[in-house]
C-alpha cells in the first residue's frame, strides 16, 4: 500500500518548523548582548545547532546500522517494517548537511569556544591561550585532519545508505534477482558494520569528545552510539505505530511490535550499562583528569544530568518489562517519546557541559531550535515513507515476516 502524507501531518510539521523559527529568532534577539556585556550568542547558537544536527543525524545513522545488522544476521521478521527503517535512515543527507554547515561555521570561527583545538591561539606555542595538553593532541585534532575524517565518514555512510535503498527498491521489481539482491545486502551489511565499528567511535571522539578537549574516555564512542541506537529504536516503534494507526502496514502484527519493543528495552539497558560502566569507573578511580567531565556537569546540570539517567534507565526498565506493555501502542508511544526526550537531553548536556558550561541555559532559543529540527525530521521521514510501497516485495524472508508469531 502506498503511503500518503496526510494534510494534517503536513500542516503540523510546517507549524512546528515555523513556530521553531519564530522561537529561535526570539531567542537570538533575547540573547543579544547589551552594552559592555560579553557575548555568548554565537557559541550558544552553534552549540544548539550541533546538539540537534548530531542528535538527528545519529538517529539516521543508527537506523542504517540497525538495518545493516538485520541484513548481516539474516533476520526474517524485520522485512515487513524495513521500509520504515529505510525512511528514517533517509534523514541522513539532511542530518549530514546540517552537521557540515555547523562544522564549516565552527571552522571559520576558530571553533567558537566549542572546539577549542580549532583555535590557533590555544594550539600554537606562544599563543594567547596556549594549552600544552590540548596542543599535545594536535597531530589528531587539527582542522585539516578533522575535515578529512569527517568527509570520509559521511561519504561512506551516504554511499551505503543509497546502496541499501536502491537495492531494496530494485528488489520490488525484480522477482528473479531478489535472492541475489538479498545476498548482496547481506555482504554489504557486514561490510557496513566493519566501517561503522570504527567510525562510530572515532566520529564521536572528533565531534563530541573533543569539545572537552582535555578529557578522554575509551568507552565514550560506544556510550554515545548506544544512546543513538536506543533513540533510533524508539523512533522506529513510534513511526510503525503511527502508520498502523492510520491503517497502513496491515501485515505488521503484534509480534513485530513486540520485537521492536524488545529492542527498545534492550538498547535502553545497553545504554544504561555503558553509562554506568563509564561513570562508575571514573568515580571509583577518582583521577582528576577524568572526573573533571562529571564534576563540571554535576556542578552545573545536576538535576538534568541525573534526571536524564533516571528517566532513560528506569522508565523503560519498569514500564517495558512486561510482555503486554511491549505490545501496547499507547504505552510504547508514551515511553518512547519520554526516552527520546531523555536521550536528546543526554546529547544536550554532552555538548553544553563542555562548551557553554556555567553560561548554558535552557530558553526560547533551545526550544525553538529543537522544534525546527523535530519538524524537519518528521517531515523528511514521512515524505520518505511516501516514496515507496510500505511493504517490500520478493524479499526471500518476506514470507517469514508475514507469518511472524512469537
Amino acid at each position, binding site marked *: 500500500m502506498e503511503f500518503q502524507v496526510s494534510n494534517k501531518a503536513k500542516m503540523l510539521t510546517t507549524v512546528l518548523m515555523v513556530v521553531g523559527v519564530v522561537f529561535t529568532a526570539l531567542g537570538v534577539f533575547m540573547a543579544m548582548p547589551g552594552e559592555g556585556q560579553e557575548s555568548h550568542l554565537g557559541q550558544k547558537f552553534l552549540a544548539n545547532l550541533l546538539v540537534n544536527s548530531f542528535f538527528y543525524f545519529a538517529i539516521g545513522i543508527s537506523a542504517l546500522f540497525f538495518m545493516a545488522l538485520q541484513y548481516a544476521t539474516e533476520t526474517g521478521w524485520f522485512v515487513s517494517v524495513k521500509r520504515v527503517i529505510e525512511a528514517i535512515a533517509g534523514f541522513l543527507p539532511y542530518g549530514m548537511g546540517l552537521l557540515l554547515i555547523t562544522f564549516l561555521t565552527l571552522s571559520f570561527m576558530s571553533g567558537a569556544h566549542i572546539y577549542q583545538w580549532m583555535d590557533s591561539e590555544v594550539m600554537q606555542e606562544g599563543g594567547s591561550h596556549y594549552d600544552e595538553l590540548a596542543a599535545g593532541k594536535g597531530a*589528531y585534532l587539527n582542522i585539516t585532519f578533522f575535515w578529512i575524517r569527517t568527509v570520509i565518514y559521511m561519504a561512506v555512510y551516504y554511499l551505503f545508505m543509497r546502496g541499501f535503498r536502491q537495492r531494496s527498491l530494485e528488489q520490488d521489481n525484480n522477482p528473479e534477482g531478489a535472492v541475489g539482491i538479498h545476498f548482496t545486502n547481506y555482504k554489504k551489511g557486514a561490510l557496513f558494520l566493519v566501517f561503522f565499528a570504527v567510525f562510530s567511535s572515532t566520529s564521536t571522539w572528533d565531534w563530541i569528545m573533543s569539545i572537552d578537549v582535555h578529557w578522554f*574516555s*575509551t568507552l565514550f564512542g560506544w556510550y554515545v552510539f548506544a544512546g543513538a541506537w536506543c533513540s533510533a529504536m524508539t523512533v522506529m516503534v513510534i513511526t510503525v505505530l503511527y502508520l498502523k494507526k492510520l491503517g497502513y502496514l496491515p501485515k505488521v502484527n503484534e509480534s513485530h511490535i513486540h520485537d521492536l519493543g524488545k529492542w527498545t528495552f534492550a538498547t535502553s539497558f545497553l545504554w544504561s*550499562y555503558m553509562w554506568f*560502566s563509564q561513570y*562508575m*569507573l571514573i568515580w571509583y578511580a577518582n583521577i582528576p583528569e577524568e572526573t573533571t567531565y562529571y564534576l563540571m556537569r554535576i556542578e552545573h546540570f545536576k538535576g538534568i544530568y541525573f534526571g536524564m539517567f533516571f528517566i532513560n534507565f528506569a522508565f523503560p526498565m519498569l514500564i517495558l518489562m512486561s510482555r503486554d506493555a511491549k505490545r501496547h501502542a499507547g504505552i510504547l508511544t508514551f515511553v518512547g517519546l519520554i526516552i527520546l526526550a531523555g536521550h536528546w537531553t543526554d546529547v544536550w548536556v554532552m555538548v553544553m557541559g563542555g562548551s557553554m558550561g556555567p553560561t548554558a541555559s535552557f530558553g526560547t532559543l533551545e526550544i525553538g531550535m529543537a522544534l525546527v529540527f523535530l519538524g524537519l525530521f518528521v517531515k523528511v521521514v514521512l515524505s520518505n515513507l511516501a516514496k515507496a510501497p510500505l511493504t517490500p516485495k520478493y524479499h526471500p*524472508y518476506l514470507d*517469514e515476516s508475514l507469518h511472524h508469531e512469537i
Partner: protein
Amino acid sequence: MHKESAIREPLILGHKTYHQITEDVCKPIEDKAPRMWYILFSIAAILGLYGVGCILYLLGTGIGTWGLNKTVGWAWDITNFVWWVGIGHAGTLISAVLLLFRQKWRMAINRSAEAMTIFAVFMAGLFPLIHMGRIWVAYWVLPLPNQFGSLWVNFNSPLLWDVFAISTYLSVSLVFWYIGLIPDFATIRDRVKKPVPKKMYSMLSFGWSGRAKHWNRFELVSLVLAGVATPLVFSVHSIVSFDFATSVIPGWHTTIFPPYFVAGAVFSGFAMVQTLMLVMRKAMRLEAYIHTKHVEYMNIVIMVTGSIVGTAYITELFISWYSGVEYEAYAFINRATGPYWWAYWAMMTCNVISPQLMWFKKLRRSLLFTFIISIVVNIGMWFERFVIIVTSVHRDYLPSSWSMFYPTHIDIGIFIGTIGLFFVFFLLFARFFPVLALNEVKTILKSSGESFKNDEAHSPAYSLADQHLAFKVSHDHNDDYAHGHTTTQVETGPAVEPMTEAPADGNIEILLSAVGKANADDKDDLKLLNGLGPAIETKLNNIGIFTLAQIAKMTKAEYDLLDEFIDLRGRAEKDDWAGQANDLLNNNEK
C-alpha cells in the same frame, strides 16, 4: 505457524525422524564406551590428579610456591581465573541470549556448551579460593556477623562483587542447564532396561511425563531463566573487569574494560566450544546435527567478538596517546616493546589477526582450519589476560621495584591440572548425559530438517516403520536384512500426523521383508508352538505369516511390530517363538 525461508540452510542434515534423533543421541550413552574414551579419560585424570597434588602442596606450603613477588602480586593465578571465567561465557550466551534472538541453530550446541560453561566456572572458582592461601577460612569472604575478630568484608571491593557475581552466574547456569536436561533424562529413563540406571535417570528426570502442560511450563521457565541469565552474561565479566579497571594502575584503569571484557569472554568461550564440538560431533557421530553451518555460525560469532576485542585494543592504544598521560602511554609502549613483548604480540596475532581470516567463506567452513583457529584463539586469550595483568604491574611507578615474573612448576602444574579436571568433567558428561538437547532439536526437525525442507522426505517424521528401520539398522548387521531394507519402499510423501490408529500396510511389508515372504501353500502348523492357539494362528495367516521359518527369523523388533498388529502382550517374546520354531525346524531336518 512458523515459516522458514527456502534459502536458509537446513540445520539437520539428511533424513531424520523423531525416533532416529532419540537413537542418535542416546546410543553413545547406552552402548559401551569406546576405547578412545578410556584413553582420553585416563590422560585427563592423570593431569587432573597432578594438578590436585600441586594444589595440596601449595596449600600445605603456602603461596610462596608460586612465582609471585612483591611487585607482581597477581600473575598466573588470576590469569587462569579470568581465562576460565571467560570460557564459561559461551554456554549461557548460547542458551540464553541466542534463545531470546530465536537462533534455532543453538539447539544443537547449547547442551554441551552449557556443560562446558559450568565446568569452566568450577575451574575458575578454584583459583581465587586457593589464592587465599588459607582456604579453610574461605568463608570469611562471606559477609557473616563479625565474630572472627576485626574482619568484615569490604563491600567497596570489586573482588567481593566477583564472589557474588560468579556464584549467582554459576547457580543460574546450573539451573538453566538442568531444566533443559529434564525431558532428555526422561527419554533415557524410558529406554534403559537395567534397574539401577533406570532408577538413576528416573530420579534425575523429576517424574517428567511429556504432557502438554509440562512442556508449557518448560518453555515458560526457559524464557524466564533466559531473561535472568542474559544480564548475568554481561555482569559477570563486567565485574571481573572492574577488578582491574577500578584501580589506578595504567593499563588497568580504562572505561572500555567492561564491554570489551564481555566481548573477549564470548570470543574465548566460543573458541572452546568449537574445540570441543568439532571432536565431539565426530566421536559421537552427530555430524548430521552439528555440521558446517553450525561451525560457520560460531565462526562468525568468533569473528565479530574478535573484531570488537581488536577495536578495543586499538582504542586503548590510541587513547593512551591521546590522553597525554605519560604513565598510560608508557604502559602500552612497555607492553609492545618491553621484556614481555612476545606476550603482547602473541596476543595481537592470535586475537586480532586470526579471527579476521574468518571473512573468507572457505576458511570459516573448513573444519580443520576452525579447529586450529579455535586453539589459537584460546592461547591468545590466555596471553591477553597475562599481558593485562603481568605487564601492567611488573613495572610500576617506582623503577627501583621493577621486576619480572617467572612461573614455578607449581604455577604450571595447577594450570595444567585444571585443564585435566575440566576434561574429566566434560568426558563424564559426554558419557552419561544426552549431549544434544534431543527434545529441543525435534521441535525444529520439520521446519529445518534437510529432507523436510526440500520436500524429499520419503517417510514422515514419526512412523513405526521408520522406528523399526532405525532399530534394525542399528542392531543388526545381517546382510540379508540390510538388503531387505534398502529395497523396501515404505510410505512415500511426507505424512504429517503421527500414526496412532491401525498400522499401515508399510509396516507389514517391513515385517515381511525381515522374516521373508511365504504363501498359504507352504503353510505349517503354527499351533505346534507353545502359547500359540488357533485364533492367533488365523491372525498371523491374515498378515502373511504362514511358516515356522518365518517365525524363526523373528527378533525383538519383529515381536514388537507383531504386537502392533495382533495384541500378543509380549507373549511371543516371553515364550520365545523364534527359538521354539528353530528347534522344531532343526528336529524336522533330523
